[in-house]
């Protein structure tokens, strides 16, 4: 269903053919990475580019962009962090309290809504919801009390639900969007800052029965277990809290694994701590590990490797490689061969980093600068990351990745802590601080994904915690905490348009097309764990909460 075009779209075949041709000219993989009329998956497509092949809205007419409709969810807790999914012209949206809405993508008319009965006991990761997955005639939702739910795509009626683990025991829950692969739905869990052992679970989409579970920390007797001394493997973190990617041609499922626990203190876990801070590639049919690449052995900075994995074919040293690009929390972008897991290159996208001095040509970390017990150490980037979980975008038209960068550091304080199952297990504390000798700032920047060369950057008033969308109209969309939804020129970074939506942006914008009309939808409403830290970092008013989806289009009639 991922590449299906509706019958309406056929009328616009010439446009599509032109688009396809253009993309082909630039890179062969454009076909798999660009979304079409729908926005079928969390990252747009399985390749997670957050790039739409639609170009009706472009540099020549973007100034005419105007609201087409607005939908208020009524769930104002923690803002609206989701990526909407569009399938067959219907838009599916979820909120923090696990409400799901199906809306007519052209008009915003409510088709159905579903409210999951959340339990009162919510783990420390809180009520966050980054979106649903749609496939096999079902809509899949993860919940803040650790349930996975399947709804009938037409009616919104519940078909099945599974309590993935008792959240009171594990202290974990589901905040990320699930991923539909073949006849399965796959979900990760939070828990990386708790005494918990992470895993990824695949369920039969139709029945909800578990197909497989991959533990991110090997049990005794399994390969990699030797990287965990004593009982540390039981509570070693390795959460799978964001959404993975899938390469149907290679039949590989990719997922980013989070930090080791206790986050800042490795005194109980001396060793490499596999597979924390790793990219794992699994056989989706069996859940068996095909390869892994550990970015950070024995992480003591809370630098998860959880963020989006962009599947891009890139020229590396004169050869086109099937690559995987990971713009990571640590302030570095890793580029791997996605067939084998081979390290290709890594480059810093932040200006301020001191946790290492660099990365060698073989991927080895150089000059580790670790937090120390009994000392306060200013380390960069902060535990929020050189970028938060809000996602970068890749445009095959420019060949660049667009990253919302944070130049913030944190004072890290280590302390000894005993693990208690399901309870917080950070092994220290952190206080956000400006970089040493530099100002605290945030900007949206374009980078060459192989060389890491910065092409342009545009400063934010405060910081950027919304995802980035790029389109074939050579436009870059994102939003800021002050409530502006804005558009930049993909090639120059020039600000072309903006619209005050009245509430801070922490979600992820998408593009889709119905009846030949291109729409751009963005969630609004400030929230999230990191968003709550705004007042500690920035002067001025606190970003406004809310929970509305704004949908923009060019005026109807001659364009």
């Amino acid at each position, binding site marked *: 269903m991922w590449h299906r075009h509706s019958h309406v779209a056929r009328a616009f075949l010439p446009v599509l053919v032109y688009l396809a041709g253009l993309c082909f000219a630039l890179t062969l993989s454009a076909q798999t990475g660009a979304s079409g009329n729908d926005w079928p998956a969390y990252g747009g497509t399985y390749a997670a580019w957050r790039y739409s092949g639609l170009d009706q809205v472009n540099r020549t007419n973007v100034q005419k962009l105007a609201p087409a409709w607005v939908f208020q969810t009524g769930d104002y807790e923690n803002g609206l962090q989701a990526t909407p999914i569009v399938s067959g012209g219907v838009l599916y949206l979820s909120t923090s309290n696990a409400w799901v809405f199906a809306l007519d993508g052209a008009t915003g008319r409510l088709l159905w809504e579903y409210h999951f009965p959340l339990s009162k006991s919510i783990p*420390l990761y*809180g009520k966050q919801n980054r979106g649903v997955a749609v496939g096999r005639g079902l809509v899949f939702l993860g919940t803040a009390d650790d349930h996975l739910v399947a709804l009938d795509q037409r009616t919104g*009626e*519940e*078909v*099945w*639900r*599974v*309590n*993935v*683990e*008792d959240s*009171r*025991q*594990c202290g974990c829950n589901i905040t990320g969007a699930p991923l539909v692969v073949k006849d399965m739905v796959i979900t990760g869990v939070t828990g990386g*800052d708790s005494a*918990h*052992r992470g895993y990824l679970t695949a369920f039969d989409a*139709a*029945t*909800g*029965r*578990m197909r497989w*579970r991959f533990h991110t920390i090997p*049990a005794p007797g399994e390969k990699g277990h030797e990287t965990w001394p004593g009982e540390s493997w*039981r509570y070693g973190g390795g959460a799978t809290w964001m959404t993975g990617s899938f390469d149907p041609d290679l039949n590989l499922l990719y997922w980013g694994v989070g930090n080791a626990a206790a986050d800042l203190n490795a005194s109980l876990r001396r060793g490499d701590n596999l597979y924390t801070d790793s990219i794992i590639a699994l056989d989706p049919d069996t859940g068996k590990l095909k390869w892994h690449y550990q970015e950070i052995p024995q992480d003591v900075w809370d630098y998860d490797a959880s963020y989006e994995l962009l599947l891009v074919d890139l020229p590396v040293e004169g050869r086109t490689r099937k690559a995987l690009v990971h713009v990571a929390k640590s302030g570095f972008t890793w580029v791997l061969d996605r067939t084998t897991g081979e390290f290709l290159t890594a480059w810093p996208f932040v200006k301020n980093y001191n946790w290492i001095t660099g990365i060698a040509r073989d991927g080895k970390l150089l000059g580790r600068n670790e937090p120390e017990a*009994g*000392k*306060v150490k200013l380390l960069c980037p902060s535990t929020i990351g050189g970028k938060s979980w809000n996602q970068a975008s890749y445009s095959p038209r420019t060949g660049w990745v667009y990253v919302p960068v944070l130049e913030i550091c944190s*004072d890290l*304080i280590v*302390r*000894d*802590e*005993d693990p208690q*199952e399901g*309870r*917080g297990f*950070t092994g*220290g*504390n*952190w*206080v*956000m601080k400006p970089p040493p000798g530099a100002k605290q700032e945030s900007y949206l920047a374009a980078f060459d994904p192989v060389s890491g060369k910065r092409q342009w950057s545009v400063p934010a008033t405060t910081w950027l915690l919304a995802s980035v969308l790029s389109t074939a109209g050579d436009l870059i969309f994102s939003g800021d905490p002050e409530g502006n939804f804005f558009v930049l020129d993909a090639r120059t970074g020039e600000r072309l348009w903006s619209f005050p939506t009245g509430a801070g942006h922490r979600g992820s914008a998408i593009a889709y097309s119905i009846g030949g009309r291109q729409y751009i939808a963005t969630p609004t409403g400030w929230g999230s*764990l*990191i968003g*709550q*830290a705004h*007042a*500690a970092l920035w002067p001025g008013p606190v970003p406004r909460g809310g929970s509305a989806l704004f949908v923009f289009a060019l005026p109807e009639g001659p364009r």
Partner: protein
Amino acid sequence: MIRVARSARILARCTTRIRARCSTGILACVAFACIAFLPSAQAQDGAAERGAQLYRQNCAVPYCHGPDGTAGRAPRLIGHNYSLNGMFKVISWGIPGTGMPEFTSRLKTREIDDLVAFLMTLRGTPAAPPTAPAVPPRALTADAKAGRALFFDATRTGACGTCHELDGWGVPVGPDLSVLPAERFADLREVMARRVVTVRPKSAEAPFPALVLERTEAQVRVYDLTGPLPVLRTFAASQVALDAASSWRHEQATRIYANGELETIARYLRWRNGK
């Protein structure tokens, strides 16, 4: 003596905030404190405001006390009932073995004073003590502890807690074990599962064992027991037939444990439900 002086100093800073809540007697005491430590109090104008900023930077980490003092794993601070000196001590030296760090290495004494001044503004009326449980929980014996650990063993998918809730953990799918007589916990493989039925979908799907949660004229909701994690499935009543007989045995759920482990779990359950 030093401690007393500090208390008075902080109280002085809190005067305006506390006034609304204090009795006359305390007000007199506060007034005295203000006079006695006037220079200090003047110098500390805005202590609570500065403390609020320090709070945002140091304590509001969402995993700790949260921006409003309500969130996270650390104690709720809105409406707390901590003493001034107690807070100063805990903030200064932390609570070893817990998530509460010491702040003496990061904050000046004066800053901790400011922080305490702010925290005093969050203070509430003492809450009624929580109702004591009907039966106070007994301390687990080593053997019972081992049994409980196996019951809720997170390292195996499909542990007892996947289907049974007990003392605040677990998923309430199967019978409530807390009310069963201790002697019922013998060989856990042989437990009778009379409530398990066979669901026969009218689609091409094969029949499966299940526990019925709800059955109305319109719909049937059952826990599908096929896999290691029970699935709550909803069918239109017309889509399925229910058969009271089932070939499902509790042994299918207990296979992930060795026999010795099952005996340990049974001992724990007997101990738990014993007199």
